């Protein structure tokens, strides 16, 4: 018998493939990572690398054309992949981890007052009455910085930033220990983005919540990250502490990605990565980045394992 893992979240060999008319899309391909309580991990990746599918796989929000779905997701030591649909809904979604989906601010129901919308998951998942739920909603609004009198407003009466906060409150109201944020700031303005990041930081301090932040925006992600996982072509290619990662990423892809970020406070000339990521339908043998990698050598024709180095992990033969 294995000892149950002690981490808040531990993901092992998570796989999610889709069937399409063009072939099987290997969106999430044997992903492993773990997360402690009150920590934030950023999953960095470019469009089409499978990062949104990873969120779907974790919360079992699957489309109908799933080809393969498997692996383990241990939440507080329990493998929630073993749960049936009903148990999963009752014990995991909202209660264990909740999701702030992409463009959440636009997915609020336009004809329901925002207070009622935030109260809904609390009533359903915590089984509390409306009045109690509304008290909870008021408290959550305080945490996310929504004025209390907005409780009886409709979504269209709020700005984008406020709606995003409401969406955040909705994910928070059931006090989950983990919140998944899928591109929480991508459609927002600069100052609103900064505001939302401030709110997230505050929640992390005040409520001890853990976050998985899925984003392509490297600069913004550094606002919250304790740990960084870089995703490329369906796989995680590097995991490490933010303090190690941001100054000096290890994986060539991560290095080049970091070098491509235009910086306000530095004179460095940003670089770009030539070529394109491989299609998730027709993946190359060996290292998936090899075709674009300036450091590739013969060994890259074999798939590199996740190699450990000073508490960091990188999927690259250079660090063998």
């Amino acid at each position, binding site marked *: 018998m294995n000892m149950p893992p002690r981490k808040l979240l531990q993901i092992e060999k998570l796989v999610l493939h889709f069937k399409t*008319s063009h072939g099987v899309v290997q969106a999430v391909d044997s992903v492993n990572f773990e997360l402690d309580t009150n920590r934030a991990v950023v999953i960095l990746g470019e469009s089409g690398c499978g990062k949104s599918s990873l969120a779907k796989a974790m919360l079992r929000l699957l*489309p*109908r*054309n799933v080809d393969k779905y498997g692996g383990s997701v241990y939440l507080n030591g329990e493998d929630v992949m073993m749960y049936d649909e009903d148990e999963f809904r009752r014990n995991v979604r909202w209660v264990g981890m909740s999701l702030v989906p992409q463009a959440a601010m636009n997915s609020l129901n336009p004809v329901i007052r925002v207070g009622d919308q935030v109260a809904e998951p609390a009533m359903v998942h915590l089984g509390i009455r409306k009045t109690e739920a509304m008290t909870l909603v008021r408290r959550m609004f305080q945490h996310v910085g929504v004025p209390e009198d907005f409780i009886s407003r409709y979504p269209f009466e709020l700005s984008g930033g406020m709606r995003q906060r409401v969406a955040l409150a909705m994910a928070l109201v059931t006090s989950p220990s983990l919140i998944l944020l899928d591109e929480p700031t991508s459609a927002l303005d600069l100052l609103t983005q900064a505001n939302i990041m401030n709110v997230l930081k505050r929640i992390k301090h005040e409520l001890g919540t853990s976050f998985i932040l899925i984003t392509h925006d490297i600069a913004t992600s550094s606002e919250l990250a304790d740990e960084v996982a870089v995703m490329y072509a369906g796989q995680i290619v590097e995991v490490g502490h933010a303090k190690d990662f941001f100054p000096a990423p290890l994986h060539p892809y991560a290095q080049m990605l970091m070098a491509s970020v235009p910086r306000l406070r530095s004179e460095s000339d940003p670089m770009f990565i030539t070529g394109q990521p491989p299609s998730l339908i027709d993946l190359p043998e060996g290292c998936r980045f090899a075709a674009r990698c300036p450091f590739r050598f013969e060994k890259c024709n074999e798939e590199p394992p996740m190699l450990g180095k000073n508490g960091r992990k990188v999927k690259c033969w250079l660090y063998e």
Partner: protein
Amino acid sequence: MNAMKNSLKRLFVYPSAVMGIVVALTLVVVAVYAMVTIPYDEAIRLWRGGEEVWYQNPKFAPPAWINLFTSKKYSESFSVRTTDGSILKEVTPGEEGTSTMSASYTFDFFYDVYPQEMILYFTAKFSEKQPFISMEWLTPDGRKIRIANLAIAPKQTYRLSQDEKLKTRLKSEDVIPALFSDPETGELLKGQYQLLITGAMFEPGSDIDVEFVFHGQVYGIAGTDQSRRDLIVPLLWGAPVALAFGLIASLGTSVLTMVIAAVGTWYGGWVDELIQRITEVNLVLPFLSILIMIGTFFSRSIWVILGATILLSIFTGSIKAYRAVFMQVKESMYIEAARAYGASSNRIVFVYLIPRMIPLLIPGLVSAVPTFVFLEASLAVLGLGDPVLPTWGKIIEDANSNGALYRGYYYWILEPAVLLMITGLGFAMLGFALDRIFNPKLRDA
């Protein structure tokens, strides 16, 4: 072009699409076949012809293939004649310009039901003296029955069932059953029958030809109607008519609707207002009633009805649906780009707005074909079908007015109805498949 090819390739992934294509192609083949083998004028002549065209056929005869499904076998119809050699005729010259003619026709009768009628059509050539004919009937059990002796006019029709003398001679009111039965038991006698005809001519150059028409109980592959017309003619010709009506109506309606919606959406202002108001008025007008009025008071020509159908179908809910989509497309970035590089309004409507809708148009167009095919049939059933053209709807109307269902002539209704249903189903399935291909968002995520 490539995209089109790809779309077509994807089409074959859907069994329903394959079925739809097969149905549509079959219909096209049938339509072409009909138009080639029975040219338009011929089709009209046959369809509008009466007894003189169709005398060889029995009335109300189901198709011959129902024998495959019944335990009692129905006799098939045929007609034979001396002019084409299907009856052999021997002429023996006699004295003083006289001559004798003898002809016989032997046929097998192994059916369980008596035929409807037997008729002999004589044509005689003579100047003064009428030729004389005698007919005899040989049964399988060797009896020889004298049928009739008569002097014949240049054109003479002799119906066996109508001959009162023959009735007395056979001691039966029903001549035909009597001829095909055993006189002892009264039961139907199967076997080989023979008709013997001998004629005497009294002038040189005199001649007799005869045609023997045997009206069985079943006929051909489609059967016949109350006017003995072979239903294969309207069934075949119904295909091009239905296709033409359905496709033209559908194409006309969809394309005009789309163009008008696009123009209205792009120019906005009073143009759009006008289109909207016309649509709202048109929506409350009763479509079918107007068509019935046009048919009753103005013209029942299929082309007039087609025109009215298209006009009335343009300003309907679909113009609003198109408008809603165009409103969205109008705001899209590529339209803004086109304006920014100086595209004129006309160009934007026809090169940028409308092509965007083709993926919506094509499946809708294909799925709408059955609606119009059925509309044409419905109007025909209501008695407003085209008075000239043979169509499936007209067959149903004839069947209905002759009490086909009441009298058990199910084939008469079922044949056109099945064709209508197959056509509808085929186009509908093709439309659905096209919709899935052109609008992949509707596909399973």
